[in-house]
């Protein structure tokens, strides 16, 4: 009887794993199968046109804009916040409050971020539906990611580095930027790359804050469409699965490259001993 149960459970384990892998392969496979015919130079680098499948260059540019703006704000703030939490703060109420807030931010669904962005950045601050409104919303979304990964990275810096540097009569600030931050750099970089993935994959929050204009943005104050929103809209509005899948391929390739970069950086920088 016990043997039978063991066999049954073992069978379930194999079956589940097979199912998971099969489903995921089917999804990715389907997207590549459906979309690859559309991928060519003109599709990627061409301007959008409502007739046919149109180019997606404006969406790529918009996506790059959102990545660039949100990271340029979130990265320094996130790193310094993590430095405060790990290196400066005395453990106590304030730190607990900050940690609690950071954790809570991670748990908020992106549609709520979208609501907030739509009323705060779009309406109250009068940015309108725009790349900047979306980017600022995304900044708040990725801030906890950067804070957490940087904190983890700072935790791995041996205490002896700090003591060694301070004992040589350096200031805390000198120790921070000469010894601690360089040692934590691989971890921090992986965090930033993780954030890029999050930004690229985000849709609901951007949908409500950047709008859906399918054209090359004039600047950061114009409304525009990111790749994910484009993929969503062509599916919803015209049922153009082929186009949505082609955009999907671009997205998956971007995620692949980012993942590869993250692994490469952490491996490379950890192996080299300085």
């Amino acid at each position, binding site marked *: 009887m*016990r043997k039978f149960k*063991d066999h049954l459970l073992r069978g*379930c*384990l*194999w*079956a*589940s*794993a097979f*199912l*998971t892998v099969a*489903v*995921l392969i089917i*999804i*990715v496979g*389907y*997207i590549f199968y*459906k979309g690859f015919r559309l991928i060519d130079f003109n599709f990627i680098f061409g301007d959008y046109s409502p007739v046919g499948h149109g180019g997606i260059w404006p969406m790529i540019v918009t996506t790059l804009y959102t990545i660039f703006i949100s990271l340029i704000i979130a990265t*320094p*703030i996130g790193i*310094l*916040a993590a430095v*405060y939490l790990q290196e*400066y*703060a005395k453990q106590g109420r304030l730190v607990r*409050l900050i940690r609690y*807030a950071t954790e*809570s*931010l991670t*748990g*908020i*669904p*992106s*549609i*709520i*971020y979208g*609501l*907030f962005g*739509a*009323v705060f950045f779009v309406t109250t601050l009068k940015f309108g539906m725009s790349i900047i409104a979306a980017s600022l919303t995304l900044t*708040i979304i990725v*801030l*906890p990611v950067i*804070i957490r990964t940087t904190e983890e990275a700072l935790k791995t810096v041996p205490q002896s580095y700090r003591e060694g540097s301070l004992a040589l009569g350096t200031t805390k*600030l000198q120790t921070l930027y000469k010894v601690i931050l360089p040692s934590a750099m691989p971890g921090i970089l992986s965090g930033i790359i993780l954030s890029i993935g999050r930004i690229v*994959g985000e*849709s*609901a929050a951007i*949908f*409500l804050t950047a709008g859906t204009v399918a054209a090359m943005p004039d600047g950061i104050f114009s409304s525009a469409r990111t790749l*994910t929103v484009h*993929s*969503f809209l062509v*599916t*919803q509005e015209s*049922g153009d699965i082929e186009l949505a899948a082609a955009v*999907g391929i671009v*997205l*998956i390739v971007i*995620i692949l490259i980012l*993942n590869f970069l993250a692994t490469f950086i952490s491996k490379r920088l950890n192996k080299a001993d300085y």
Partner: protein
Amino acid sequence: MLEKLSGRVFLFCALLSVISLLLIVGFVFYKGSHPFVAEGYSFLDFIFGMDWVPSEDKFGIFPMIVASLFATMGALILGVPVGLFTAIFLAEIAPKRVAKIISPAVQLLAGIPSVLYGVFGLAIIVPFLQNNLGLVKGQSLLAVILVLAIMMLPTIVTVAETAIRAVPKMYREGSLALGASPIGTIFKVVVPAAKSGIMAAIVLGLGRAIGETMAVILVAGNSLILPTSLTDSVRPLTTNIALEMGYAFGTHQEMLFATGIVLFSFILLLNFVLAKIGSKGGK
């Protein structure tokens, strides 16, 4: 001097996350509570109302609450066992070489934009249901459940696998030395030891499922009826916000924020319940 100043700057940066949270909660709650506080709408009618017709000033979200609840629960029931079993398989049973290929691949899939899961759902799952169950429209609660369950798989597998791998070897050896079978050891010793990590995996997967919006819009059908079967077309809370936010104004817009509050409370509640279950099991 510089030291003092920099300390202040760091503190300020850290406080920005508190400020952001307060702003978000403040704005959503302020906007969302306005109709009930200042305009005389009844909160109970909002929660338990069956009709959502903004043009007629009717704002009831009960069908959406039910849809969200069913969709999340359904996805959990399908996704959690499969995800956990896969994680156990990868961490404990799979040959090393197999695990080495599958684990990173699954991890990668956790990063794929959720919209793509929706695209897949609309292209494959919806027609499949439509043809095989003889439905008029394949977009249904069941389609939502399937898409969400698939979407949460990579998250659950990745986090749970890490937790299971972190269980010290000596636990396994201890159990095996006492004559327990390998499978028995896994389910009686290893999995309980990894409980908190597994709970975290479920909470994360749940968060992804309940908050998902765009993928759900594509496969839900978005009808405003109270779902009575798995094949009914539904409109969960998130999609209601995304679908109407573009043109809503005045009370209508505020009601969308109120929908946001309900979603918010929903998430807090579910996390709380799961945390309770987790801590109880831990004792």
